[in-house]
């Protein structure tokens, strides 16, 4: 059972969290202006890197806050955790 450091509540077991997929995928400014392909990229396509990956988590059984975490997908190690709205920190795996 991995610990995930909630930026507010501190480290808690992963069972308290919900996964939200890739972080920093902004909702398009004007979806109607996008081509079908551009829209499909937003809806269906996500990165799948081997290494650091910025993703969203929600402390759903705790403070219910969404936040961002950089996880090394090879080891699951959380390299950084930061609050929603904050820029992704520089990390090295």
């Amino acid at each position: 059972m991995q610990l995930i450091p909630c930026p507010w509540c501190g480290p808690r077991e992963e069972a308290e969290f919900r996964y939200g997929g890739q972080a920093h995928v902004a909702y398009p400014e004007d979806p109607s202006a996008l081509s079908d392909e551009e829209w499909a990229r937003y809806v269906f396509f996500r990165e799948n890197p081997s290494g650091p990956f910025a993703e969203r988590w929600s402390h759903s059984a705790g403070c219910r806050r969404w936040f961002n975490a950089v996880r090394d997908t090879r080891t699951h190690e959380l390299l950084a955790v930061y609050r929603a709205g904050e820029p992704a920190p520089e990390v090295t795996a």
Partner: protein
Amino acid sequence: MTADLTSLLAAWTDRLAALAPALTAAERPFRTQLTVRTADPSALGETLGVGFPAVPCTFTSGAGAEVLWLGPDEFLVVAPEGVNEEVVRGALGSSRGSVVDTSAQRTAVDLEGPHVRDVLAHGCAVDLHPAAAPAGTCVQTLLARTGVILQVRDGDRVTLLVRSSFAGYLAAWLCDAATEYL
């Protein structure tokens, strides 16, 4: 005709009482609880006469009220007689936020006794050692398979707040987990 108030835990009163002296467990039902969302609770603190918790995962108490930290802009006010949704919303004024009466959303179970931490450790992954969870601690976490708000009071006293629909499960779990200490 005025309807009677009923609590789902009423059916558990005797079974919870039977856990004494290993664990004194009793429901504290029908308290006024208000969920408050605001980034700036200072005015509310003045109105209620109790400062809002500034530190995550803590609670404050005073003037007959308790204020539990639920999130960076979210608090649960366990209000004294006479304080209700309108009063607190009035104190919020025009500032951004919300006040919702959630009195019946959760019920409270007070636990006390030498084995409180032992019993809870059977289902709670948060470190409840007195050094790690001193009096004033208030965590939202999982206890066994239900979410709870866990308030640590002084000594060996803990209050669990649980969603009303999960209260029966929590009571059943407490009774089972405490069996070993009877």
